[in-house]
């Protein structure tokens, strides 16, 4: 019984199937699936290419008739590729976008599938000359190494001189490293102490100030001319005022106060100003 619910079954005869044939006899059917199949075939035409022949019902009568035949089997084995085996059509939806190299896919994904609106991605913009022409890679590497060593020697030579005078080698190594980092492009130094107790910092700055003052005083007394004194405060002069504040005047308590000069800068020079000015 197909399905869980009892259904009204029609008693139909077993015959060779043709399209549109009506069931009229009252002989019981072999299978309920047969009924459904016949009902289906009554409504729908069969597919044009019937690859797999359904010989279940066709041979119904044949089976009955063959039982009466002789018991000797006439089976002689399978014939070689006699019948056309049904060609199995493989539909594979799992195949993704193949044939595109990883780099291009990653570049596209980066521009298009990130959360930003996509920009122009153009492979032609990227540098095509990525690798130099094929030279001896070994000599190239050796040359680079020599260059680097020479540059380092030239830069750190004054440090090496100091180290000869038996100072701690670790200090010179630190300074050399610090120089290299600055050359590569570090913004801040590794050696500066960022956090220290307030009393320490005050003491250090005071000592530095007193040393500088002493140097200047001694130089003045001895008649040595030094560079002009510059204070750090003069460097950080400009301060941010804010984007939406008015460009002229002072704003306080809901009022914008414009001085005489502000008004003049807004109004511009008076109408008859140019007569008295420089004329050539």
């Amino acid at each position, binding site marked *: 019984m197909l399905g869980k619910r009892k259904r009204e079954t029609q008693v139909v005869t077993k015959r060779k199937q043709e399209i549109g044939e009506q069931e009229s006899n009252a002989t019981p059917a072999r299978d309920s699936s047969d009924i459904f199949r016949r009902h289906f075939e009554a409504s729908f035409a069969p597919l044009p290419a019937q690859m797999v022949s359904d010989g279940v019902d066709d041979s119904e009568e044949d089976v009955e008739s063959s039982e009466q035949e002789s018991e000797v089997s006439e089976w002689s084995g399978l014939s070689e590729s006699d019948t056309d085996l049904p060609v199995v059509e493989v539909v594979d*939806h799992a195949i993704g*976008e193949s044939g595109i190299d990883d780099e291009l896919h990653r570049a*596209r994904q980066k521009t*298009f599938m990130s*959360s930003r*609106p*996509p920009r122009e991605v153009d492979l032609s913009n990227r540098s095509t000359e990525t690798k130099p022409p094929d030279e001896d890679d070994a000599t190239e590497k050796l040359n680079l190494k020599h260059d680097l060593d020479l540059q380092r020697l030239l830069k750190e030579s004054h440090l090496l001189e100091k180290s000869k005078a038996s100072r701690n080698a670790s200090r010179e190594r630190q300074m050399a490293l610090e120089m290299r980092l600055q050359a590569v492009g570090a913004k801040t130094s590794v050696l500066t102490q960022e956090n220290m107790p307030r009393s320490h910092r005050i003491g250090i700055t005071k000592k530095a100030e007193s040393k500088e003052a002493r140097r200047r005083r001694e130089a003045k007394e001895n008649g040595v001319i030094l560079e002009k004194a510059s204070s750090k405060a003069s460097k950080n002069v400009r301060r941010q005022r804010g*984007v939406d504040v008015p460009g*002229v005047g002072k704003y306080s308590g809901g009022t914008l106060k414009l001085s005489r000069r502000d008004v003049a800068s807004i109004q511009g020079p008076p109408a008859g100003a140019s007569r008295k000015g420089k004329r050539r």
Partner: protein
Amino acid sequence: MAITQPPVKFTTHRSLSSRLVLATLRGRPIHISGIRSKNPANPGLAPHEISLLRLLESLTNGSHIEISYTGTTLLYKPGLITGSVPGRGADASGVLRHEVDGRVGRGVSYLVLAVCLLAPFSKGKVNVLFTGPGVITSAVEKWGDISIDTVRTAVLPIYTQFGIERDLEIRVHKRSNPSNAVRGRSGAGEVQVVFGHQVRLPKTVHMLKTGRVKRIRGVAYATGVSGGNNARMIEAARGVLNQLAPDIYIFSDMGSSQLVNYEKAGATEKKKVGLGFGLSLVAESSGPGVFYSSDAASGAEGGETPEDVGRRAAFMLLESVERGGTVSAEAANTVLTLMSMGSEDVGRIQLGKDVLANENVVQLARDLSSFGAAGWGIRDAATVDEKNEGQFTVSVVGSGIGNVGRKIG
């Protein structure tokens, strides 16, 4: 006391979001009456319109909204657009959470497009997180809403033409198709819009060169359904488009659907919400800032094969390309509004006949003139160049209002 202009009067619910956005940008109060007054079943404001009003209230400072008892009359006095300011609506990290009500059946692009129009003219950065039981990230064909991918790939790049390009992001945290599985819940997505570039005045654009379509990109998304749907949609779309464009690439985004709690006979059960799939296609043209897009998604009840959805999206894209112009129908509202908010200079774009004759665009022109903006100049582009058959050059003069919060005295 400040002298206020009398409110501009409108009727019916048509172009309601466009009118509210224009009012906020120009700082003029509006009065809309007769909103679905003849509709016996659902009179008054619809849930998506109420959600938009809430969003405007949280994005602005000092706005005043009055809705009549029946909901058919609305008075909106806009305030200044402040964006997501920590402490005023936004939380400490500067993210403004907007809970979309579950009865909103429209795509979240309806709200996102409004936010993207207001954000360049805000005082501070805009960072809005759309969450809640009504966020639908896919296209909603019933309402004609585009998917959030189309907003990101076809509408936002046009902002670059106006000089707004930095810090724009639309992050899709969770995807969702429209769903009617759980009562009171139409979607389960989550979208974050980050708009960090505010300008004083958008640049004047002259987008007259349509060019030719040079590549087609797209996103096939599947939420809670098998990823094979994506491949099938892509294959169907490619079947149509491969012979027409050389460079086609469609990305596949697969995700799981969200499980939501719902009450069933007293007990709390979990149900998957927002299942579905869809395809968003964008055709980029060689003219700068010219994008044609199309969207197709499976229905909430299902029953449509991915091949059908893919083919439909491809044909809709071809229709959009056929309509032509430098601005497609999806972006026309955005572009024309931005142009009208620009400096007092003439900007020109080219619109196809069917895009210009669309009722939304015509209504936008009428609304702008109600607000006091100058009229548009419309000229047949075929007089300039024979190739532009069926195109119209629209000249828009900006009003010079721009960003009020960025004015420097």
